[in-house]
């Protein structure tokens, strides 16, 4: 057993940190309050090659593992919280189904452009009438010669304002006619053609620099060449990408939690009330120490899941557990940071309220804590499925 990062991993962490240091808190605070996409950060991240970290070298990437990608995402979230993470997350994780299952033509057309940051991507899976129950999505793709014609609605589609393409999950066989409910679903890397897709931005609690939207898809024409993997196997292909997404999300939670904790610890040792630093009161110190311990534990779980994934071993329970623990640890750390800063913690200038708002989403997306617990109950503990 070896808990050390390799020298290459340490160099990557130092490298991405040096990049992130050029984007101070004020940059993120401003972009968040102006609801403005962090284009400069995205460009810098792309130019330095980080978007292509997990894209194979043959397609313009660096061909590294999910462990390296997770370390990078953790640093991004440490610097710019979820605004930073979500700005680049989809380019790193979202295209994994294309890397693994895409045709040669699809890979050639999109992976190099993705690695260079020339194209933005969205992930259009969730639907208003299906929610966590993905098999019940209604968006339908009808074959029409060389094309498919897609109709339906998607909700919570992040980055659809910027995206050129979206990873779009559809049904090609209605659920009633499918042999199993997970059959008959098809995944496309579809054009986000504004003539056929109305993109309506949603108003949310936080992470305002990166948009989340409702999509109204009306006769969108998608070339058969944009199909990812085989028709009818979209659900399974999507599932293949879920473990990396959970690992990266966990890494982001650890980054944001550490950022909050750093600020809280500095403040706790500097702020003097009743003639002593507030951090000298155990009521302030212990919750911070506890937050640290939880983040450490979540990170170990996350790294274990990433390690398994990179060894091509099953890692579903570990990736789910990492996401569960990291989302809790992140939110707790942010909440305690707000409490440590008292009234100042509630003020935008001090940043922790932004972390608090943003970290809340990790308990809901990309998969809710409840659904993670369902998975663990059913697949690890072998308890009867409850739903």
């Amino acid at each position, binding site marked *: 057993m070896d808990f050390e990062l390799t020298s*290459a991993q340490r*160099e990557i962490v130092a*490298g991405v940190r040096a*990049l992130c240091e050029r984007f101070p808190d004020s940059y993120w605070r401003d972009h968040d309050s102006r609801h403005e996409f962090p284009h400069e950060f995205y460009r810098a991240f792309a130019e*330095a090659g980080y978007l292509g970290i997990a894209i194979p070298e043959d397609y313009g990437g660096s061909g590294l593992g999910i462990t390296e990608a997770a370390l990078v995402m953790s640093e991004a979230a440490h610097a710019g919280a979820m605004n930073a993470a979500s700005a680049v997350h989809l380019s790193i994780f979202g295209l994994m189904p294309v890397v693994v299952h895409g045709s040669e033509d699809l890979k050639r057309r999109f992976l190099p452009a993705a690695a260079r940051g020339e194209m933005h991507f969205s992930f259009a899976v969730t639907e208003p009438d299906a929610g966590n129950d993905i098999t019940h999505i209604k968006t339908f793709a009808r074959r029409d010669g060389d094309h498919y014609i897609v109709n339906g609605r998607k909700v919570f589609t992040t980055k659809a304002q910027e995206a050129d393409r979206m990873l779009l999950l559809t049904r090609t066989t209605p659920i009633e006619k499918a042999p199993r409910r997970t059959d008959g679903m098809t995944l496309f890397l579809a054009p986000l053609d504004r003539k056929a897709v109305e993109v309506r931005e949603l108003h949310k609690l936080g992470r305002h620099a990166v948009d989340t939207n409702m999509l109204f898809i009306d006769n969108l024409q998608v070339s058969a060449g944009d199909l990812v993997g085989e028709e009818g196997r979209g659900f399974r292909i999507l599932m293949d990408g879920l473990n990396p997404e959970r690992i990266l999300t966990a890494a982001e939670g650890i980054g944001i939690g550490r950022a909050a904790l750093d600020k809280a610890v500095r403040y706790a040792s500097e702020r003097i009330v009743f003639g002593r630093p507030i951090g000298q009161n155990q009521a302030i110190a212990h919750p911070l120490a506890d937050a640290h311990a939880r983040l450490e534990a979540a990170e170990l779980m996350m790294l274990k899941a990433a390690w398994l994934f990179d060894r091509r071993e099953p890692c579903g329970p570990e990736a789910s557990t990492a996401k569960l623990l990291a989302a809790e640890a992140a939110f707790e750390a942010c909440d305690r940071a707000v409490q440590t800063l008292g009234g100042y913690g509630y003020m935008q200038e001090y940043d922790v309220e932004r972390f608090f708002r943003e970290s809340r989403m990790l308990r809901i997306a990309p998969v809710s804590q409840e659904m993670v617990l369902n998975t663990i109950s059913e697949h690890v503990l072998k308890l009867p499925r409850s739903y």
Partner: protein
Amino acid sequence: MKILVPVKRVPDPATTIRVLPDGSGIATDNIKWVINPFDEIAIEEALRIKEKQGSGEIVLCSIGQITWQEQLRTGLAMGADRAILVKSDQPLDTLAIARILVKVVNDEKPDLVILGKQAIDDDSNQVGQMMAEMLGWPQATFASQIEFADGKCKVTREVDGGLETIAFPLPAVVTTDLRLNEPRYASLPGIMKARKKELKEIAAESLGIDLAPRLRIKKLTAPPKREAGRKVESAAELVQLLHSDAKVI
């Protein structure tokens, strides 16, 4: 053009420095180490010269412990071609450093040596000048612009009165000032490529150079804690206080 860039490892400028209780040095636990910012500017300038000229070789050189490899790797990741680490576990003074670098220059025969005007740890500002003297080469310190024309190097220097431009033939030693450029950061492919680049180690003792220190640091003390200032109501009061309290006018 072949360019040699000497690189020193220093504490990150953002680190809080603590002097050891006995004054023998600084506490090195929890310090983040970086390339001396002026040397980073030197690496960047060498890269720009190479990129502009379309060819060339950039060799980095550090003199220090094995851990200094980290900073050399960062420089290689920025784009330098190879690196030399002259290993020494004992602290060396500026004269010994300059002597070692001159030896490296004699072996490597670069056309140009670019290095920081000073290292931000001890702020000596001596190595570049000593090297030029020992090599008998022209030197241009505090460079804020470097150009090449008609086989000559033209350097704009930041001096007290303003800017001075000097031209001289190569080989030469140039030391960098803050405004010369803004260094790039290493890219991910750069980091991965750097791992395969040559990083040669040489033992300082094997060079046959007199490394005995001529300079001894007797004691380090932290600067006195700065007291909070105070606000005055008017200019007249300020003048009065400068006269009566501070006794400076």
